[in-house]
């Protein structure tokens, strides 16, 4: 039972402080879910699983915030010993609803206020303070994911992974290649290198 309350509380916070879009939200999810997984109530979401969820989110329609809530909410009850599909489904539903409740209420109740003050500068002032922080949040998510979980621990793995990362970065930054194509390409390279050649 406690795990559901923990999850709901975590996703309420993620929804309430999720400024700056999906990538900025990653740092909140990381802090609430992955770090929590290393603590006492072992939720068992590793950096690796977290990265996989981001990959899956990129390749399926819909926002990362919803996708991660649905996936993580399903997996964690199973990890702490709830075996039934129904109980996992419940976690999935709980997280997905929890992440949209705070913005839902905020939008419903503050919409008039924000529209009235939109041009007065209060909202703009707050947003201008948030913007540099959001850049830092996204950078922290990237930094946290550059680890042995994702890049491997043996020299050959690290070299392959670094190459894949650099090439992917150049592709999304300087060409018009779609992120999904980048992921599919990297997956294909992974299959060749790690499965066929068994590096």
């Amino acid at each position, binding site marked *: 039972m406690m795990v559901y309350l923990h999850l709901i509380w975590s996703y309420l916070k993620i929804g309430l402080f999720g400024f700056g879009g999906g990538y900025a939200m990653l740092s909140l999810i990381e802090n609430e879910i992955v770090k929590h997984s290393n603590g006492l109530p072992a939720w068992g979401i590793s950096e690796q699983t977290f990265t996989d969820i981001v990959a899956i989110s990129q390749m399926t329609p819909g926002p990362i915030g919803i996708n991660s809530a649905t996936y993580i909410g399903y997996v964690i009850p199973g990890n702490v010993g709830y075996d039934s599909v129904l109980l996992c489904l419940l976690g999935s539903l709980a997280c997905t609803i929890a992440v949209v409740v705070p913005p839902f209420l905020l*939008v419903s109740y503050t919409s008039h206020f924000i529209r009235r003050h939109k041009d007065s500068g209060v909202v703009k002032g707050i947003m201008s303070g948030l913007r540099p922080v959001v850049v*830092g949040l996204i950078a922290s998510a990237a930094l946290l994911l550059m680890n042995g979980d994702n890049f491997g621990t043996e020299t050959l793995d690290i070299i392959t*992974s670094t190459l894949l990362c650099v090439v992917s970065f150049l592709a999304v930054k300087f060409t018009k290649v779609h992120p999904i194509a980048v992921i599919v390409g990297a997956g294909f390279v992974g299959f060749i290198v790690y499965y066929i050649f068994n590096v």
Partner: protein
Amino acid sequence: MNIYLQLFFTFLKIGAFTFGGGWAMISIIEKEIVEKHGWLEREEFLDLLAVAQAVPGILAVNISVVVGDKLKGARGSMAAAIGTILPSFLIILAIAIFLTPDTIKNNPVISSIFKGIRPAVVALIIAPVLTSAKSAGITWRTVWIPFVVAVLIYSGLPVISNPIIFIIIGGVIGYVFHAYRQVSN
């Protein structure tokens, strides 16, 4: 068809066919709401978009909530929000059931594919660092702010590695600067 169902199905379509979340969705939502259904004038839509961006949360969901609310109040926003969420919820649920973390780890083919994918995902997160820095107007004089934020979150130290702290500080400082500027004017 009644307006609630129309709202629901319009946002269901948007939720089911837009990859990459909020920003990719905006132009499609605008097309559906403003051009196709004529529910809102472009001006009104941009107004609501500003609200959706000022509120935390998932942008696509926020947009559906403000549009639904504007058209049909609380029930309208509910219909639109559920429409946006439902496709990703069902798709990810199906994936979660069949592609569990254990499967990814233990199936040799799938695990090799994901081993290749992970560094690419990191690259996909590095790219928006630069884009968002540019749109936030970060210069050499202000680059220390995101730098300090990122390093402290990365540090994993108690309390100060919590990103929520920095969101609150950023919002408060932004507000204080604004108030100060008004007083000095």
